[in-house]
């Protein structure tokens, strides 16, 4: 994969500019944490990136997850792989999943603690469970770069660690909006601090402590 770049990117919300103009280059293997107060434009930045890089196999894990509540956990995860199959195969899967897809997806669910939920409709899950289903879908989708918006915000300590580890294992290159600074510093190797729609901190994470990031908040 080549480097990805944004040139003078902007995002507007109605008449107000919420982001940019800003420029940014991401090299393969960089896992970037976006940090900053809520509402400073982290989500907007991720949307801009997705719009720009969708054709280059960017995988999106949005804050509102994008799950289909009426479909089962299995099918929601399977949706990550829709583009890899023909239409008839996808329609048949909707009626009855194929064995090999079950064998691919079940271990993923086991590791996320959702092993017994494969057949449950997503609408019946708790917030934390739903967030893990969305993570599983992103992992099943794969792709060159992960764009995730608060991927573990609804998860408690140990579960958040598991999901973060699985995400960074599946995507060597990623941009993650994070509110947990400690997790951000441990699982990412580059930190972007966002303030007023611009980048005010851009440092390798091993040179930062959570205290250095406090002024952003």
């Amino acid at each position: 994969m080549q480097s990805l770049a944004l040139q003078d990117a902007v995002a507007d919300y109605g008449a107000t500019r919420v982001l940019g103009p800003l420029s940014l280059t991401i090299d393969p293997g960089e896992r970037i944490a976006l940090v900053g107060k809520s509402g400073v434009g982290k989500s907007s930045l991720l949307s801009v990136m997705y719009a720009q890089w969708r054709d280059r196999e960017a995988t999106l894990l949005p804050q509102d997850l994008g799950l289909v509540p009426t479909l089962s956990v299995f099918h929601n995860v399977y949706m990550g792989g829709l583009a890899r199959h023909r239409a008839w195969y996808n329609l048949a899967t909707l009626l009855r999943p194929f064995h090999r897809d079950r064998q691919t997806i079940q271990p993923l669910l086991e590791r996320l603690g959702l092993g017994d939920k494969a057949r449950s409709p997503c609408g019946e899950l708790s917030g934390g469970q739903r967030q893990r289903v969305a993570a599983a879908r992103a992992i099943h989708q794969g792709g060159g770069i992960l764009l995730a918006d608060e991927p573990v915000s609804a998860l408690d300590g140990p579960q958040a660690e598991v999901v973060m580890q699985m995400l960074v294992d599946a995507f060597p290159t990623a941009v993650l909006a994070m509110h947990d600074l400690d997790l951000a510093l441990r699982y990412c190797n580059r930190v972007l601090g966002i303030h007023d729609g611009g980048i005010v901190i851009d440092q390798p994470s091993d040179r930062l402590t959570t205290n250095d990031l406090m002024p952003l908040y």
Partner: protein
Amino acid sequence: MSRSASLRVSLGFIALAMVCLAFGDFEISTHDPWQELGRIFLGLIAPDFAAVDFLGEAILRTLAFAFVGVGLGAAGGFLLALLFRHLWVRTFCAVVRAIHELFWALIFLQFFGLHPLTGVLAIAIPYAGIFAKVYAEILDESDPQPAHTLPRGTDHVSGLVYTRLAQAWPHVVSYTAYRLECGLRSSAVLGFVGMPTLGFYLESAFAQGAYGSVGALLILFYLLIGTLRWWVRPRLLPLYLIAAPFLLGTGLPIVWSNVSRFFTQDIVPAPLRNGEGLEGLIPWLGNLLVNQALPGIWNTLLLTQIALVLTGILAMALFPLISHHFTGRHGTGRLKGMLGHIVLVVMRSTPELLLAFILLQLWGPSMLPAVAALALHNGGIIAHLVGQRSNQITLRQDAPRGIDRYAYEVAPRVYGPFLALLFYRWEIIMRETAILGILGITTLGFYVDSAIQEIRFDRAMVLILITALLNIGVDILARRLRNYLRLRHSINRQSC
């Protein structure tokens, strides 16, 4: 603000209805109306199930026409829903659904004759127009986010099915099931124009004075609709749909020369057919408008407005029958609620046309049977929905009881949804009012029917088009009113 506005609008409608009342004809002309009613009641109490073939045939055909018609309508409607963003599709759907099933049946009868295709298309075509609109709305309401996160390169069909359709599916199923109930009523009513369904058997039983058979037919029909949710199961549905086309009966064969003659000669306006050109067409149209369309429109509007207000009054008076705030939730309350449900099921399952037909036998031809039939049927439907809505309200524990509870706690809370529902039914009531003309009440349907009897299909087509435009106009007006009163429509999509 909204409350005083809705009050003003309500009072305006009531005043208008009073004025209409002064212009209408509401005389009971039959000699002994109550004796006839007594006979029908006797028939209901002591139904005659002896003629099993006859009853079985009536029910079987009614079911078969409903399933095939609604099934085709749903399939066609779904395809149209996917194209609903195009103006021409929306216009097409608005026109086909503004024309009543029976008008479609009358049209198809002229060239397909008494072939099953006539009945099937008469249901399928207007239903496709309605399904298209509602399915499109349901699909639009689904969350766009899942589609947004789909992997690049997902084919269109998978994308649609996994995201929008998967979310919309439960709503699509429940709406389609609801329309099936409407379809059963439509199918029954098609019997009045000669299809081999319930209405046909009912009409002949009436003509023979066989009130026991009338009672048996009605009771079977109520049972069929009342138990719908037990025998219409998602798993059984494919079976029904496969079996239904084989149970339509054979009817009479189609004469294809009639089909071509209908399109090339019959529906061409007479002056054009006779080569008189535009000079002939204008007086022909003027004559048609002044002598038939205008009186028809006038009577249709008159009846619609009166029936609308009466429907509203009846609905607000009857919804407590099924509201647990009034029946109570436990012990005898449940029983009372159940009885209330039965009353409303009977009211809403009886198609207007059937009710009007019965009342017409009782009271003779005037506007009275039509208004009563429309108000009873539509009032039953709205009372049912408002009652359901009221059951979602939680009252404080020390809320007043009885009439105070009605006036202060419940009625003010359900009045907004009630008005929304009533305005939804405005167009439906008008469509039904027009069609009641085929029973001899001088609304637009009367003139359509007479034109057809006189084999003047050109006139009939113009009148049907005028009826459709009138319906579309009322629909637009109702939408404006709902917006003005800020009545949200999310509660329900009842429309038959």
